[in-house]
Each structure stands twice: as C-alpha cells, then as structure tokens.
C-alpha cells in the first residue's frame, strides 16, 4: 500500500515538472508570435523625429549629443552605457545622458523633463521614452560592452553590486531574493537569475521593451523603479546614483550579450 502511494507521488511530481516545462515552451512560442508587429516600432519612429527636430528654447536638434562614442554617434551607443563622462565627471546611464543633452544643448528645464518621465498605463509615450526607444533600436544586434576602465566606472559597479544584494524594506527583500537563484517565478512570470551570465545577458538585452499589458514601451530606469515598488522599497528616484549604479552592475554582468531591444513582453 505504502509503496503504491510513493509510486503515485513520484508519478504526480514528474507529471507536474513535465507540465511546467511544457507551459514555459508554450509561453516562449507565444512570445515568438508576438515579435512581429511590435508597436515599439511606432514609438521608435516618433523618437527618431524628436531626435532630429530642432526643439527647446535653443531650437537645436539632439544630433550633436555625445552618448560616449562622439557627438552625434547614435549607432551602438546604448550598448556601451552606463559609462564615465568627463564633461560631468561622473558615470551616467543613457537616460541621464539624454536629459543632460536636452538641458545643455536644447535648453530645456531639467525639473520639467524629469517630473513625469514615464507614461501611465494606456497614456501616450513621454518624449523621453520615445527618444530612448529610438536610440536603443540603433544598438540592436550590437554586443553589450559596458566599460570598466575608469575608477568611477569600477566604483559604480561595486556600489551596484552592493545594492543588488542589500536586503531592506518590509519584506526584507534584496534584488537577489528574486533574481539570485535559478528556477524562481512570480505567478507565471519566470525570474531570471541575474547572477548567471547567460541569463543576465538575455535579461539586460531585452530592455527597453514594449509591455503589452501596459500598452507602452518601458525603459531600464522604469524597470528598476518598478522592481523597487514591487519590493515595497522607498521610491527609486529617476536618474539617481542608485539607479545608475544598479544599471552599471547589471550591464557589466551582461557584457558579451547581444542587444535585442526593443523587445515585446507580456
């Protein structure tokens, strides 16, 4: 009787694990089908127009913006960010650099730009999101190569790593609580183990992405902001050092991967 029950238990467990892999395969197939007709293309087109149009009080376009590869070089720039910028003597991620260019080149007011950086669900995209989508598309297929040459870049990575493993908030979560081991998921969303090189590459390469459930393109800054919200941490300030440092850490972990962004997600 006991042996029969154990046999039944083993059969049940193996049936369950087979079903889970089957589900993941189906979800992967569903994601492949979604790839075609990614609405992020429309956002990219709008972003390209914003990049090339003279705007702001200075009536200048962003075509002289230096994203780290020289003024005006957009191709491949996103895959090499965050990096150290001598003109501001600190490490900046893409969105910080974009706001910097919009303020210094075009004369926009910084407070106005960062007041509402992310569109609400169903709302039209913000200019920052459109521009981010355009620039990231120009790095599609490029190898991720976040630099670690300058002392400040290395320091940023170290602080980012510290943040990744730092437990806080009412749940005593760290990033590693969800993203530090294999095989975890929240409901039907699998959580990539970001300490594993292969998974880290895939994850970093897929952001920014069009989020079908929200009808908008979401950037890396948004993803980190939302993770902090999900952990019930205090709000992650847009373009803060913490956000940049975490991005540096995740980016360096993903070095060697290939940018796939903008991808399409649930």
């Amino acid at each position, binding site marked *: 009787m006991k042996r029969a029950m154990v046999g039944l238990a083993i059969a049940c467990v193996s049936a369950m694990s087979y079903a889970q892999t089957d589900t993941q395969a189906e979800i992967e197939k569903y994601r492949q089908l979604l790839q*075609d*007709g990614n*609405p992020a*293309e*429309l956002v990219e*087109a*709008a972003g390209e127009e914003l990049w090339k149009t003279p705007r702001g009080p200075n009536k200048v376009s962003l075509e002289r913006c230096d994203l780290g590869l020289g003024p005006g070089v957009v191709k491949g720039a996103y895959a090499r960010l965050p990096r150290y910028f001598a003109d501001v003597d600190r490490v900046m991620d893409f969105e910080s650099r974009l706001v910097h260019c919009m303020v210094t080149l075009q004369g926009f007011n910084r407070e106005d730009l960062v007041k509402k950086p992310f569109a609400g669900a*169903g709302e*039209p995209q913000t200019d920052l999101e459109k521009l981010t989508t355009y620039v990231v598309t120009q790095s599609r297929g490029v190898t991720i190569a976040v630099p670690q040459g300058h002392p400040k870049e290395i320091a940023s990575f170290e602080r980012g790593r510290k943040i990744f493993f730092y437990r806080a908030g009412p749940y005593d979560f760290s990033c590693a609580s969800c993203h530090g081991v294999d095989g975890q998921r929240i409901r039907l969303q699998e959580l990539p183990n970001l300490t594993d090189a292969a998974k880290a590459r895939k994850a970093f390469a897929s952001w920014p992405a069009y989020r079908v459930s929200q*009808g908008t393109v979401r950037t890396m800054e948004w993803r980190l902001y939302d993770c902090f919200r999900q952990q019930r941490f205090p709000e992650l300030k847009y373009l803060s050092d913490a956000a940049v440092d975490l991005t540096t850490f995740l980016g360096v972990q993903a070095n060697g991967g290939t940018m796939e962004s903008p991808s399409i997600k649930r």
Partner: protein
Amino acid sequence: MPDAMRIRANMQGEKVAVRVLMSHIMETGQRKDASGKIVSAWFIQNVVAKHNNRVVLDAQFGPAVSQNPLLAFTFAGGKPGEKVQVTWTDNRGESRSDEATIA
C-alpha cells in the same frame, strides 16, 4: 497629422503579403478616467488598401479592435516594385495614408 503607419509588403509565392502597423489610441468609449468620466470613443472605422489604384481591401473596424492595430492580409496580382497604399479613417474624421513598395 496622425502618426505614420509601418507597412511591409513582400511576395509570398504568387500573392503579395502585406503587414500594416497603425498607430492609433483606439479608445472604445467605454472606459472611465480617474475622475469617473467616460473617455470618449476614438477609433479607426475604415481601412482601405489599394494596389495601382485598385481597391484590394476595404475593412470596417470597430471599438473591438485594440490599440495600434496590426493588420495582415494577402492579395493577388501584385509584382515587386509596385506600390501598395493604405488609408485609414477614424470616427473623428481624421485620416492617414501611407505607401509602401512591394519587396
């Protein structure tokens, strides 16, 4: 001027396969905003596709079609290099027309 559509047209055997990604908010008119007021309907009602001035598709869309509609269809009689023109009209009278060359 509403945002541009992305149109891709290529040969699939004897027929031409066209994919159109339209940029439109497609508000159904049933949603309520944060203050409880109905968000008024704003959606594409009609899509017409032409090939060499011949209508190959005439579609009636409604509020059931979701945001940023992706329309894929095939038609016969097209050859690479020829033009396909797609026009949409919405319930507020706005319209947008874009063209693509068959690959």
